[in-house]
């Protein structure tokens, strides 16, 4: 993945999560992955188009998702209902949008697709012929993994 794309995503994720969760947020070591990886439980996906093609996944355990949704809404949410899903969707949107704005400032034009949410157990995601950058973020509610796969359009 193009080096210039990395920082905007990492920064956006860090900024937004710190802001909305109001707790301590720590960034783990970034790494690359090309094979299938398990999905933790609830995953939001945002597609990217424009100069590039790709997608961003926001992946977390259901427990983490519910606590994140509770923190963002200021009320206790204890099941994966419409509100919980809408909240996670919004979180994905906020992070991706901020990253894309930063990228726009340095001259890259991306468009976003509306986020979609997947939930279930024992799922895995496989990218064929594209490598994903994993940005693990540790919050007090649990781990959120941001998985970015972008490639240049030829």
């Amino acid at each position, binding site marked *: *993945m*193009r*080096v*210039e794309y990395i920082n905007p995503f990492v920064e956006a994720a860090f900024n937004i999560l710190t802001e909305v969760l109001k707790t301590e947020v720590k960034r783990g070591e970034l790494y*690359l992955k*090309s094979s299938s990886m398990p999905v933790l439980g609830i995953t939001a996906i945002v597609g990217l188009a424009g100069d590039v093609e790709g997608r961003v996944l926001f992946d977390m355990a259901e427990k983490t998702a519910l606590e994140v949704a509770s923190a963002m809404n200021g009320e206790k949410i204890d099941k994966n209902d419409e509100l919980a899903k809408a909240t996670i969707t919004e979180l994905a949107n906020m992070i991706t949008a901020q990253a894309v704005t930063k990228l726009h400032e340095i001259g890259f034009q991306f468009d976003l697709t509306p986020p979609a949410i997947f939930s279930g157990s024992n799922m895995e995601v496989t990218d064929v012929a*594209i*490598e994903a950058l994993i940005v693990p973020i540790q919050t007090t509610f649990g781990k959120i993994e941001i998985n970015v796969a972008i490639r240049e359009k030829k």
Partner: protein
Amino acid sequence: MSSVENQTQPAVDVQEQQEKKAHIDFKMVTFSLAGRDYGIDIMKVKEISKAKNFTIVPNTSPYVEGVYNLRGEIISIINLRKMFHLEYSEERKKDAVDILILRLDETVIGMIVDSVDNVVGIDSSTIQPRHPLFADINMKYISGVVEVKKKLYVILDVERVFGVDEDDLERMRIIQEAPAAEKGPVNKARISGDELEFDFITETLATFKSFYVTDINRDWCLRRLDGWKKLRKTQKKPVQLESVEDAEGFLEEYYSVYTNMLWGEDYRKQMEELVPAPTKGSIDVWCPNCGKGHDPYSIACILTLKYPDRRIKVWASDHELLNISAAPNLVLPNQGVPKYFLEAKYVQATTDGYQFVKAVKDLILFEYHDILHGTPLPELDIILARDVLSFYNQTVQEKLVTQFQEKLTGGGLLIVGDNEVLKNPGFSEVKSGKIIAYRKEKD
């Protein structure tokens, strides 16, 4: 192939042959391996068998396929192709394979071959001495060559191949690989010691620096070991590498000139001589594992100077996030910039040092990317992989070279490190000064 009977009966063509057939005093079992015919003294062969599903034994040499229960007797099975480093496809394992079971003094050993052919009787005086031309396998394992009915058989000296009395396979390998058998026991110990020492260095280089000694760099390593020994003697330190620092010291002379530096004027001239004349409107270059980006910047500038009317495109990648993140905004110390970069105005002075101008940066796309994950790129004219291959193990090296070959256009150039050697077919070596490069042969 004719039957055993035909082979031994004298009723064949040439008269000369008939005479020879009259005194057959040597019979050999023949088999084929990688398209070549071999023979083994029949007195050494216990029986011929077909088998599959060997029991794998952990921690054995890679050519030991496992053990096999031969009617109650447990025998080791050796894969001859692997032992002689001939190409071997794991696919073959599924079917029963031909095995020659040999009796060597007390030991019984099974040897997987491609196919067992026949028994051929010959007059031992027709056996000719071994010849270096047949050295698909190591010369020292060959006891002679014989021609029977226009077919050439290489006669293997199994005693030498499998050793005589070793039950420890690892020890056996070391002793066999040294040409000790001809030199007597005193020499034997010394050479095995050297081999061990080299093996140990090989192991530690892999552990400390993930530097893998293979055909690509073995010659350099052997040369370096001599110098290293002298150096360590004067420093009164052991030859073996005990830490990352030692390993780095050993590899100090390995790196190509202008590593982590922009290429000087001399290197530029040599490189200009090598680069293929463009066949289309653009020149596409790939720099896998480019570190902080000195190589991609240098090649981009050199190509732009030489072919100002072509579109130059350089893909540069590295799997070290820290290195590659620094690459797009590489800052060069004021002394570290060769003149031609300044004259062509490829760099501009900033408060920290020189930086490349946007026009140059736009030629290069830096990616955080692991080349083991496969790289989708268009057909390339140049692959610049200096000191890249040696840091991957043998299997990966082979895969990468194949990948490089596939990605290069016909006549395209693969540039490896100053101390790296490729022996792959399909590439022809070209040299210019210190630079060793490989031109992909046109289809």
